[in-house]
């Protein structure tokens, strides 16, 4: 179990502030680092990986600083965004080199294990220069996993992967996270973060805008109305009854059903069953229609 801690971290280049007073602690499990392009995700990741010094604040892994501290790599693996690998090596040679540089007691076994983990055993003796994009990505992930690190950092790992490879990578990250490793991956694609992790750290314009479970984040933002899609046996009567509720701010009817906007999540969800019961209406379907990360994200960005 390892913890990655950022305490009051800022990073600026002259007049441009790339990361602005970010504090976060990552524990075991998978965390998504979410944010639009240019928000500072890569800067934060590089600082965590020891490739950039914070202008202010500290970045530590289990209390040890990451900057100018090569021993931190014993338990840290990084998959950077840039697709660079040694083209002239085969995957097996690359992993052997990585294992040897980590001073592992049995480099051959470690390399073999890493290859199996990313399903690259078939192509292991071909030069990396002949690989497809997804295969190169998987090779790099294997390289970051060869020493079985407790912390794994991935910068936009799903870039350029086809759906099947994405699924496989997501499942791999899930497994590793469930086994107690601390995994952080960055993305600007919301579906990816949604599907792999429930915990997010949202970075917008260098600042940490939100952190934690994204459903909980959504609930915290009570000044935006929650939107529900309801199907019932009598939509119009239900609509009329709901408009009388204090927590309801708007109701829309169309062929697809009822769309209700509620300002206060708690009181609405308590009131709805009571109203339906009183009116003798059966509610067939009740969907919160914007709990997706997409809406959280766009709300945060527009805020």
């Amino acid at each position, binding site marked *: 179990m390892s913890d990655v801690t950022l305490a009051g971290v800022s990073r600026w280049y002259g007049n441009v502030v790339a990361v602005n007073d970010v504090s976060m602690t990552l524990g075991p499990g998978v965390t998504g680092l979410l944010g639009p392009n240019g928000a500072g995700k*890569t800067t934060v990741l590089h600082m965590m990986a020891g490739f950039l*010094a914070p202008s202010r604040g500290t970045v530590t892994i289990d209390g040890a600083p990451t900057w100018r501290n090569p021993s931190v790599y014993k338990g840290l693996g990084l998959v950077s965004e840039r697709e660079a690998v040694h083209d002239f090596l085969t995957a097996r040679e690359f992993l052997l080199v990585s294992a040897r540089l*980590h001073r592992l007691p049995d480099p051959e076994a470690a390399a073999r294990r890493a290859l199996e983990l990313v399903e690259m055993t078939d192509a292991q003796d071909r030069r990396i220069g002949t690989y497809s994009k997804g295969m190169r990505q998987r090779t790099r992930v294997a390289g970051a996993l060869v020493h079985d690190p407790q912390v794994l950092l991935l910068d936009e790992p799903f870039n350029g992967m086809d759906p099947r490879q994405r699924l496989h990578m997501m499942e791999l990250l899930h497994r590793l996270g469930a086994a107690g490793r601390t995994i952080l991956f960055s993305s600007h694609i919301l579906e990816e973060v949604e599907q792999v992790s429930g915990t997010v750290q949202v970075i917008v314009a260098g600042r940490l805008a939100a952190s934690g479970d994204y459903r909980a984040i959504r609930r915290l933002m009570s000044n935006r109305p929650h939107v529900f899609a309801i199907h019932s046996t009598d939509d119009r009567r239900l609509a009329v009854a709901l408009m009388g509720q204090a927590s309801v701010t708007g109701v829309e009817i169309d062929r697809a059903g009822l769309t209700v906007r509620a300002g206060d999540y708690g009181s609405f969800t308590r009131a709805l069953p009571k109203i339906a019961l009183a009116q003798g209406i059966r509610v067939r379907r009740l969907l919160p229609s914007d709990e997706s990360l997409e809406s959280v994200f766009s709300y945060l960005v527009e805020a």
Partner: protein
Amino acid sequence: MVPQTIAWITARGLFGRRRFLLLIPLPLLVVGLAILGRGFGVAPENWAQPVLVGLGLAVVLPVIALIVGTGVLGSEIDDGTIVHILTKPLPRWQIVLPKLVVATAVTTVTVSISLYVAGVLAHSVRLGLGLALAGLVGALVYSALFLAMSLLTRRPVLLGLVYVLVWEGLLGNFVSGTRVLSVQQYVLTIADKIAPTGLLQSKVSLPVAIIMSAIFTVGVTVLAIDRLRSFSVAGETS
């Protein structure tokens, strides 16, 4: 195990790229001209200077050292594969020193053999050995210098060229003060003192040459190791 692995991957990287082919014609040219000169019975005093010094020590040695020295680390920095080497729990000197050894070895093998042959043809085996040994020392100092340059600037090849052509070439010939800081002069002196012939004209003394070579090598290598410790990758790269 670690130094051998670093050396192995560095050597593979050097020989796997096309630029390695550039290393071949230059030493052959030196040998070819020496054969020409000796074969036609021209007195060595006439052709030794331009071939051994003008071409061999002043051009072939630094240029090959430049290509190899900036290639061992600079090409990995350029294409981003350095990340894989740096995310390992290795003290940075364990990365720099094997690379320096590989660069020196490749440069020496390429240059010293041709210098030895040319020296033998020009004068004697002793001159050949002197040139070869001086070539080894020069390869070490140049390699350290250019390896450090690939960490200190974003355009190491350009700066290396400026150093060799302007500092050592132009100024070294005209401004005597700069000779003390010119690797070419150290190499010249070492070769001349090992095999005193009238053919090479060394302009700095042997103690100065040896001490300055040592200072240069150790100094820039320490600098390089420190810079590698603070190696930064900025924001998003594509």
